[in-house]
């Protein structure tokens, strides 16, 4: 069988072709929405028309079998219309109210997990990990699975003071908004890259661009070997050199693991967008279920649930109680790693004599 005629530079199809008729009709003319339960919300247009969205979790990594199954249900109950969210959830777009209950029944019967709407834990933004990326110091999909198993109730029913946005990145490249999440897991290296075979550097790498790739100026030429050397005092294990010069091996199963960062957000509501900050500098990889990571994230979440005011995000809660209190109520140790010594260090030092004891 020969392939059809290829075309280039056509871009994606027009979005209008994928909008349910009720959305086409009321486009840009919505009045309000209501969260009916964790898995269902309804949007009401100024015309009085309604559209219901039924949200289910997905592991993001989907087989064609599951996609076909979802497409079948969309056909049966939604006129074929379905969308995905930024956080890897799936939304069935129901235009006819009488399809709402049968759809939910079928989803329940098939063990799809409905939820994620409102002040809850939604799905976890994450990256490729060992499934498909060469830089990974951990597996993102596995961490997502064990965390969401633990917090499943907060997706399907229980409420949190405000939305809690989790993220997992499997290396410091952080493909995803890890650096601005309520609680995030980011995988890190802890040892300087090792050049095992200097001939490989000679053959595979441009020495000037390898040196230029290092943000801390830790790399210098090694003219005798026609290679490079690393100043261990300056290196901060970012792996940037490895990216441009593969023989600078940085993977190390014994010393790679994850850090936990907290208190970031992207929305502007109440307070400006914030970066996540370091809570736990290192936890060893312990696949397949990373129990130590789950315990720490749970500890942080529990402290937030116990103490936060309604509508406070994790970062806002921490700002109110102060970082010294955060470490106290979570029982997490404060270490030298918590004090910044990278590019913006100065701005993070406390320049006031005001503490909460």
């Amino acid at each position, binding site marked *: 069988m020969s392939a059809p005629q290829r075309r280039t530079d056509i871009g994606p199809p027009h979005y209008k072709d994928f909008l349910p008729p009720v959305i086409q009709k009321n486009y*840009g003319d919505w009045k309000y929405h209501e969260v009916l339960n964790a898995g269902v919300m309804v949007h009401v247009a100024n015309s009085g028309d309604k559209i219901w969205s039924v949200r289910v979790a997905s592991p993001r990594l989907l087989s064609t079998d599951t996609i076909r199954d979802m497409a079948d249900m969309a*056909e049966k109950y939604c006129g074929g*219309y379905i969308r995905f969210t930024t956080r890897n959830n799936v939304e069935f777009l129901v235009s006819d109210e009488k399809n709402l209950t049968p759809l939910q029944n079928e989803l329940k019967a098939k063990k799809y997990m409905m939820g994620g709407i409102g002040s809850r834990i939604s799905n976890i933004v994450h*990256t490729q990990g060992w499934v498909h990326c060469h830089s990974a110091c951990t597996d993102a999909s596995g961490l997502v699975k064990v965390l969401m198993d633990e917090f499943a109730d907060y997706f399907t029913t229980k409420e949190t003071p405000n939305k809690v946005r989790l993220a997992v990145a499997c290396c*410091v490249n952080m493909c995803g908004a890890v650096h601005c999440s309520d609680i995030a897991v980011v995988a890190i290296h802890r040892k300087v890259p090792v050049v095992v075979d200097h001939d490989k550097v000679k053959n595979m790498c441009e020495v000037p661009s390898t040196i230029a790739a290092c943000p801390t100026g830790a790399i210098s030429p090694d003219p005798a070997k026609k290679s490079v050397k690393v100043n261990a005092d300056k290196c901060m294990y970012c792996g940037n050199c490895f990216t441009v010069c593969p023989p600078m091996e940085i993977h190390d199963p014994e010393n790679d693991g994850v850090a936990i960062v907290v208190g970031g957000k992207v929305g502007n509501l*109440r307070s400006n967008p914030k970066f996540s900050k370091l809570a736990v500098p290192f936890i060893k990889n312990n696949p397949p279920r990373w129990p130590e990571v789950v315990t720490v994230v749970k500890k942080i979440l529990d402290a937030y649930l116990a103490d936060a005011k309604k509508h406070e995000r994790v970062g806002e809660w921490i700002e109110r109680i102060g970082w010294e209190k955060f470490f106290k109520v979570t029982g997490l140790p404060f270490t030298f790693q918590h004090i910044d010594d990278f590019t913006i260090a100065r701005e993070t030092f406390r320049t006031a004599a005001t503490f909460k004891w």
Partner: protein
Amino acid sequence: MPKKYETPLLDELEKGPFPSFVTEIKKAAARSDMAADELGQLEKSYRDKRGYWKHGGIVGVRGYGSGIIGRYSSLREQFPNVANFHTVRINSTSAFFYTSQFLKEMCDIWDQYGSGLTNLHGSTGDLVLLGTNTENLEPIFAEFSSRGWDLGGSGSAMRTLSCCVGPARCEWSNINTLDINYNLTQEFQDEMHRPAFPYKFKIKTAGCAVDCIASIARADLSIIGTWKGKIAVDQSEVANYAKKGMNITEEIVNMCPTKCMSYDGSKLTINDADCNRCMHCIAKMTKALKPTGEKGATILMGSKAPFVIGATLSWVIVPFMKLEEPYDELKDLIRKMWEFWDEHGKNRERIGELVIRKGMREFLEFIGVEPVPQQVKEPRRDPFFFWTEADLQK
């Protein structure tokens, strides 16, 4: 029949209520040799606590320099079916709306030519087809493009754009996010498919300051809808919220960052002159409060992950721009930014890093944007600033 691997470690990840990615891989592995070897290799990664993927040769489709990411197993003897196992990035639809018909066609093509595994979606927003051999790339591209679908971006190119659900299903959108997303994608096809930038360039569009697409955290160009007029208050709906148990003083008035609201037990008053349009009150009382007046967007630039200079959030370039089709002002601005980057950027230098290196003044002068207070949190604190000859004449 594909090879069957023992996977005691991964099997542990089929337990528990959350849908399992291992189950997904196993479903595909029941019929695809590639997916079977992916599963086998992943089990080994779990055992050895390290990944086994690497780069190798150059792959792509004819004429394009992006859209395909080459991926090779470093254990090719052991897992020959993933010896090469490339990613295909398909440019998604605006706000990820699909029809079942398209999804099924996509599945048919992918089962025929690939592993049957996907990511819906990658964090940039591509529809990611996860894993196929080199010889399948051209047929896959022909199958998709003949049906009206194109590849997304990768490498030093404009990446696949993404936007929030906006006017399609959200009452708060100040701009037509889906259309901006689509229109810019079509305008810049060459920049997406033939990498000519110093590094990647991402554009993300959110309809309001809630920023559901996280544009402020992960886009070289962040477009965030806003408005200039007052917040209209429907007092009877305010009363309804109160009746349903909302503590308006605690939850709304006291949480307003600018302290511009008051509530006397029956009437909610907003001093609009002090409101900074953070969206908190509107998001919590959507039936009662509505932005009015002129709508547009704030244009920000420069956010990226921490590599090289530390993480950055996007910062304001133009505080308010009207965005209406054909978006010429925005397109001109984007082209100017690219020109600056093209002239001064080093290989692998994001545009935000360049602007920090060169200084905002040089950048703003180049793109023709005047300095305004909205671009800074506060003016500088030191007296060490430069004067040009032209400044001295003023």
